[in-house]
């Protein structure tokens, strides 16, 4: 065997390198085909539907038009949908970051003995479906729920607080659903943070706030950027939690797509809004890559 190996001329190595791309392509091909069939083709079809003209009542015609987009951009209600979605996206991302950052930092610093167990506890909500967790919040926050029950029975309030069936309920539910995602992203991006940098800063006289601002925050910025991107995209596209906790009062792009397709039967309008949401996602990704490049 050794003889065979040694007898292979060194000049054959470039030939082996030539076959490498074929292997790479062969390995990538199944995923590329699945991606093309399950993602690219439906998105192309979605784009085509967004240009179909529909008559009153949602009847589809064979004509193509730009009206679906024109109607969207000239309607103040649509602008409200975009602003509601962006406010929810940015708001939920910010609150989630504030809640998850201390948890992630603690997990990064805790001794390895405890880290694994605490890490599992942090991400354990992901083991339960977000639908089930949202129903849980409906039970906790409802007029006859646990929270109002405690406040009323202790005499703090006379009538129940409206904590659900409104925007507040959606924010509470969304933040809880997204905290594990944010924590995971933050921990993944904390690789560059080491205690020696903080110790060095402290030895040079930096107080804890300055150490956080000048050392910890810049070193954890890639994790923050990743977590924010993930939470923003998930918030903008979230559908179940706003539907269950919004009480029909919270109109967002994602809920509007469902309503237009399933309730109003206006498929072209639903498709046009979907394309607009995809563009928003694209913009978010572009901002993320620019931010990450800056940190690198």
């Amino acid at each position: 065997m050794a003889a065979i190996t040694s007898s292979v001329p060194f000049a054959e190595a470039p030939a082996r390198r030539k076959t490498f791309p074929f292997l790479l392509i062969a390995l990538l091909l199944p995923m590329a085909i699945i991606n093309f069939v399950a993602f690219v083709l439906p998105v192309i079809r979605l784009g085509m539907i967004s240009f179909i003209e529909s008559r009153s009542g949602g009847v589809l015609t064979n004509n193509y038009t730009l009206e679906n987009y024109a109607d969207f951009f000239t309607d103040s209600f649509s602008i409200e949908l975009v602003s509601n979605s962006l406010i929810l996206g940015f708001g939920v991302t910010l609150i989630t970051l504030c809640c998850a950052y201390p948890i992630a930092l603690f997990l990064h610093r805790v001794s390895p003995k405890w880290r694994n167990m605490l890490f599992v506890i942090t991400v354990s909500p992901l083991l339960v479906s977000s639908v089930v967790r949202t129903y849980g919040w409906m039970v906790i926050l409802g007029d006859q729920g646990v929270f109002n029950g405690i406040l009323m029975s202790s005499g703090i309030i006379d009538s129940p607080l409206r904590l659900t069936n409104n925007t507040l309920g959606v924010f509470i539910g969304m933040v809880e659903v997204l905290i594990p995602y944010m924590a995971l992203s933050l921990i993944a991006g904390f690789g560059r943070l080491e205690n020696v940098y903080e110790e060095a800063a402290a030895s040079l006289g930096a107080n804890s706030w300055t150490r956080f601002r000048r050392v910890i925050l810049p070193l954890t910025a890639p994790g923050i950027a990743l977590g924010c991107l993930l939470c923003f995209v998930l918030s903008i596209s979230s559908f179940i939690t706003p539907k269950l906790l919004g009480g029909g009062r919270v109109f967002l792009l994602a809920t509007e797509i469902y309503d237009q397709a399933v309730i109003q039967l206006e498929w072209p309008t639903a498709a046009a809004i979907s394309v607009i949401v995809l563009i928003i996602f694209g913009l978010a990704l572009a901002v993320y890559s620019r931010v990450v490049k800056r940190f690198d």
Partner: protein
Amino acid sequence: MKRISRHVLSATLFAATMLSGAYANAADITVMGYRGPFEDNYKKAVIEPFMKAHPDIKVNYYGVQNAATSLGNMRAQRDAPQVNAVIYDLSVAKIAKEEGLVADLDTSKLSNYADVSDIGKDLGGAAIPLTYDTLTLIYNSKAFPTAPTSWETLWDKAQAGKVVLPAQGGGDIQAILLTIISNRLAGEQDYKNTIDPGVDKLVELAPRVQTWEPKPDAYTLVANGTATVSIGWNARSQFYFDQTEGRMGSVGPTEGTASQINVVSAIEKASEPEATQTFINYAIGPEAQAAFAKAMFYAPVNTKTQVDEATAKRIPMMDPAQREKLIPVDWMTIGDMRDDILQPWRRKIIPAGR
């Protein structure tokens, strides 16, 4: 021994030939319709007796969330339908007909069609009336020891925060009918003139509404006391009345109510058109209509249907006094007015309750 073997072989061949012949003649059709209690009861009351009467036709039921989902499936399967017939709402059937998704059956070949009431026959053989239902006021029996009698109960200040109105995504046909009813309560009799008075009246109600998207549904929230009053369909209300042992009640208010029409259509380009037609004819016949009315309290469309007194009492469409007060709704023009009626829900009514 040889003779016995030959006999056995012949008998086996004969049986196999007969069975294969029977299999070749058997038809397998699929009916798409509402899932949940509708599906369960429709299978028991209509499909199973039909298959007993027609052993050569096997009927499968494919349950979907609502009529819009049915329309979506029909659009997706336009060139290769996987269902043969669909049970859905008349207003959605109009869209399906205009898009060429349903077959226009020759009604002269349906022996029971002549006995079907005229209400909802607008689309001819493309959408044949199957059931009638009415919008009702539903209430929590503990909160209302005496049943309310008027739609105005929804506006009762004592019920503030305890009213739920199903208007998912800015409303569907329940919201349309409530707009028409509110319009009449506000003094405008014809919704085709204007719906503004009705919209103003609903704006007044909005701050007292607990939720516009009751989960899992209005019937459950009213039955368990989370809400005290809402609107719903009579058939489901009666069904839930039994299920909840009377914790939720249902009433056809004195001002009158409006009807909703479910229809059945044969799918264009689907296989087994004759078996499908046989099933549709059976579904609109008096036997199937009576059985489903007893099971689910939908008003029968066949005028020759015999329904027992106890069941008839719980179906407003079968009460001559209620039927006389039925608010006329032209579902053929509602399709064109749909946007005009539902836009105010998203822009004025629901925002007024934030």
